[in-house]
């Protein structure tokens, strides 16, 4: 297969037919280039918009108490529903597919937090250890709140990386240091970060709920409960919501039809909507991408057919001189493979380069466009597809041309 002389012959043919080579190459390079720009931009758009949302677990469900609005069993509307630790324990017992659960007690009053002479106002979240996975607040230094902290009501805190920046100047490690929350010292055991554009998500201080209830006179009060359940479809998730409401209605004496007694925020529903929108965008991009590829294939095929037609006479001459049909077919094919591969590679490189330039020049906190990654395997398979179709498109007319009797090929003037 590898015959230097044959390649030299092919190169000299390519060199002397620059326009034809350029046209074939251009349609391939353009197809690949467009596909990459399209896929990359789509991904960038998706990443950009995605970063606007909380980085909370996609399947999290949040339950907040409210005020009854329907009379129930002789109780007038307007009763405040109060959650307690018992609700937390009950949900933990009752829900079969429970993945994570955490309750939270809101500390009243100001949320000023200090370290030595540095002050700042940050959100104080009192939580169970599972909150790490519901909020997707993963420690980048030290550890998260754990079960022993809860059991022993330890005065420990995990702070967001922006809190770390604000309170601990000159790059001092906060681990093991004491910060003061309402004047009470808490030992910092970890720093977390979140993959989110929303700074609020990274300006929080987590402390164990048991400690907060004990120190800040919470008793067994709980202000909200967050949980996540394993793999549910949207329908199952809605049914689950109903069941949850019924369970609270039974335990807190309110009508389960009362939609003001408790509030349930189901992230899965919200996210599903956006996912549907993204799926639409993705589908749209693929349709255009496939369209581009098909246009490329048609372009390459057209050019190959014309090239072979244009070369019919040359093929006739070569045959009269003693070329075998296979030597003709193989040289046309090798030529087309060479051109399409090279052009495909150029398109690939240019497309990736453009996306890199765009990625570098988009501001880091852009809300619309972020990390326009390209799925390389898709790009490479598209290139290979174009090469194969170009080859195939060239093969059929080349085979026919090689079969034509030289007389016929030489006849046309």
């Amino acid at each position, binding site marked *: 297969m590898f015959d230097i002389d044959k390649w030299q012959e092919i190169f000299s043919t390519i060199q002397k037919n620059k326009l034809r080579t350029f046209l074939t190459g251009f349609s391939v390079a353009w197809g690949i280039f467009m596909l990459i720009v399209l896929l990359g931009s789509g991904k960038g758009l998706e990443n950009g918009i995605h970063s606007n949302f909380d980085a909370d677990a996609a399947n999290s469900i949040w339950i907040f108490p409210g005020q009854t609005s329907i009379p129930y069993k002789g109780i007038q509307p307007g009763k405040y529903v109060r959650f307690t630790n018992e609700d937390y324990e009950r949900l933990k017992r009752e829900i079969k597919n429970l993945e994570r659960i955490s309750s939270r007690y809101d500390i009243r009053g100001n949320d000023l937090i200090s370290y030595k002479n540095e002050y700042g106002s940050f959100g104080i979240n009192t939580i169970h250890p599972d909150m790490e996975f519901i909020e997707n607040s993963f420690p980048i230094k030290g550890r998260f709140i754990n079960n022993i902290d809860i059991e022993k009501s330890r005065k420990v805190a995990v702070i967001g990386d922006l809190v770390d920046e604000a309170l601990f100047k000159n790059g001092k490690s906060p681990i093991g240091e004491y910060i003061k929350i309402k004047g009470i010292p808490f030992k910092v055991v970890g720093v977390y970060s979140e993959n989110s554009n929303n700074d609020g998500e990274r300006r929080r201080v987590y402390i164990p709920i048991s400690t907060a209830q004990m120190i800040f006179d919470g008793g067994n009060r709980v202000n909200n409960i967050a949980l996540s359940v394993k793999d549910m479809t949207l329908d199952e998730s809605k049914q689950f919501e109903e069941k949850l409401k019924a369970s609270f209605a039974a335990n807190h004496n309110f009508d389960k039809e009362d939609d003001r007694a408790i509030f349930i925020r189901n992230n899965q529903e919200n996210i599903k909507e956006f996912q549907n929108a993204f799926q639409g965008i993705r589908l749209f991009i693929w349709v255009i991408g496939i369209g581009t590829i098909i246009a490329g294939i048609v372009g390459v095929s057209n050019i190959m057919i014309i090239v072979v037609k244009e070369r019919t006479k040359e093929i006739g001459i070569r045959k*009269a001189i003693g070329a075998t049909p296979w030597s003709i077919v193989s040289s046309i094919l090798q030529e087309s493979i060479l051109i399409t591969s090279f052009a495909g590679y150029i398109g690939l490189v240019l497309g990736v380069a453009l996306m890199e330039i765009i990625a570098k020049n988009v501001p880091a906190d852009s809300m619309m466009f972020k990390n326009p990654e390209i799925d390389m395997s898709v790009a490479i398979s598209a290139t290979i597809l174009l090469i194969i179709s170009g080859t195939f498109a060239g093969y059929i007319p080349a085979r026919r041309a090689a079969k034509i009797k030289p*007389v016929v090929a030489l006849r046309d003037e």
Partner: protein
Amino acid sequence: MYRLFRNNSLYSIINLFMIELKGLHKSYITGNNKLHVLKGLDLIIEQGELVSVMGSSGSGKSTLLNVLGILDSYDEGYYKLNNTLMSNLTEKKAAHYRNNMIGFVFQSFNLISFKNAMENVALPLYYQGVSRKKRNQIALEYLDRMGLKEWADHMPNELSGGQMQRVAIARSMISKPKVILADEPTGALDSTTSLEVMDLFREINSSGITIIIVTHEKDISEKTDRIIYLKDGIIESEFISPRKVSETVGAYRN
């Protein structure tokens, strides 16, 4: 045939046949019509002959040349080239014979437009697997013999008709064929150039290569040794050309 029997042995007679046709038929089918072009040709051409084939258009002379050049197949009879039967050849085999046994010269030169004169001449050797350097060197030698050495790197469109035909002749000779088949080689040339080309053919012929020229010009055919007239697909008549006669007579006189 009488000429052949003057030779010494049967063995040598058989050996001397370069081209042997017997009862050759060829028809073309276009749609529902069948066009019977060659209607039973018998022809023997010896090695080293310079033959011209004449005939009006439609007489079958081009078809004959295509069959002789293994560019086209035939229906009936047989065709032996250098004592080898040319029938039912695979494309590969046919290509091999064309490459090794036959050189072609066409009316429209049929040079490859994007190759220079030297590369065009060298092309048959490419299909014989001769290395680039060597075949270009040989091509230069042949161009030199044609007096075209300094035109070696010119493209065909930079050459005159006579020059192009000489390049084509060099190309037909480079693979050292047994037979050169020329289809109206002077058809696109003016009369002076035509005569030059014919002189060239005579010179090549004197080195022992059999040459068959299809033409409709009488003065061209008279430059050959033997003239075959085709009419309606059969050989109408056959002459030793006046030139050859006078040459032979002259030889006997001396």
